[in-house]
């Protein structure tokens, strides 16, 4: 199991990272980490746009949805079934899928170990034959941040970005919410960023850099959605 994980996730990602490092005009592992992070987010972009599109279509279906909800008020099962049928009829798919959700964690773990070995430089035996071994790796980002040591500023940056992101994700004017739901969203907004800072303070700064960049990308995506929503309601 560990072997398969290594073969299909960790090793390809590590080789991509080193390949990026090799083609950079200036040798900087920090820039390579940023580039790989952006590359992964770009690969995931099409599914993000599909979601946007279906959100739009869904709004047009809203009256019919309310009708169904009214009709099967007391039967959750019938209601779900009827809604599914409606989506199918109009060829709308507002759903995400479970596999990508559950696969995120292994990818995250793989990336962490990839960035760790990229920073340590113990990569000789992991490289594919067509990827050149860069030898000594420069882990000083932009000439002044040592990425293989923990860095307080980077840890805080990662936490702050995450706070902004969860703040943006909070639904506005959801109407009356019950107490548990409120506590849950408060936990997501305040507790998770603090946890991020605490964990990042102990990890090499390269990992905090990854976290900050990937969160920043999510913020940009979220901002794009909110802008579109506002334009539509105008």
């Amino acid at each position, binding site marked *: 199991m560990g072997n398969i994980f290594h073969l299909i996730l960790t090793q390809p990602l590590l080789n991509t990272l080193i390949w990026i490092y090799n083609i950079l005009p200036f040798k900087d592992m920090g820039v390579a980490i940023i580039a790989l992070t952006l590359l992964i987010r770009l690969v995931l972009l099409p*599914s993000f746009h*599909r979601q946007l599109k279906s959100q739009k279509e*869904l709004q047009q279906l809203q009256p019919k949805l309310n009708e169904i909800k009214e009709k099967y008020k007391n039967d959750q099962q019938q209601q*779900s*079934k009827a809604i*599914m049928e409606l989506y*199918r009829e109009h060829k709308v*798919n*507002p*759903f*995400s*899928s*479970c*596999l*990508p*959700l*559950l696969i995120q964690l292994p990818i995250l773990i793989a990336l962490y170990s990839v960035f760790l070995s990229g920073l340590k430089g113990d990569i000789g035996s992991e490289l594919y034959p067509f990827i050149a071994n860069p030898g000594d790796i420069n882990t000083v980002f932009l000439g002044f941040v040592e990425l293989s040591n923990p860095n307080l500023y980077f840890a805080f940056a990662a936490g702050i970005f995450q706070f902004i992101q969860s703040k943006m*994700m909070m*639904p506005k004017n*959801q109407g009356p*919410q*019950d107490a*548990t*739901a409120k506590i*849950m*969203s408060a936990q*997501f907004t305040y507790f998770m960023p603090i946890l991020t800072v605490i964990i990042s303070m102990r990890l090499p700064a390269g990992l905090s850099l990854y976290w900050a960049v990937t969160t920043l990308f999510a913020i940009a995506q979220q901002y794009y959605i909110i802008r579109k929503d506002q334009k539509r309601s105008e």
Partner: protein
Amino acid sequence: MKTLAIKIVELYQLSLSPDHSKWGKLRFPHGYCQYFPSCSEYTKHSIQKNGLIKGFFQGLYRIIRCNPLSRGGIDLVK
């Protein structure tokens, strides 16, 4: 064992699930899973009906099917 497995699925539904937990319903008001019943609910039913081992694998197979390429829909435990 069977009861324990079902309890674990229910714990997941209460805490982490984007379809069944409180925060999930807020964040994804139209639902998350593209199947009905959701993957965790399906797994629960399957364990109840077919036992722990078959239920585990049926649930796993359902999660693998629940990917961006599939169409979703109504899919009850056989």
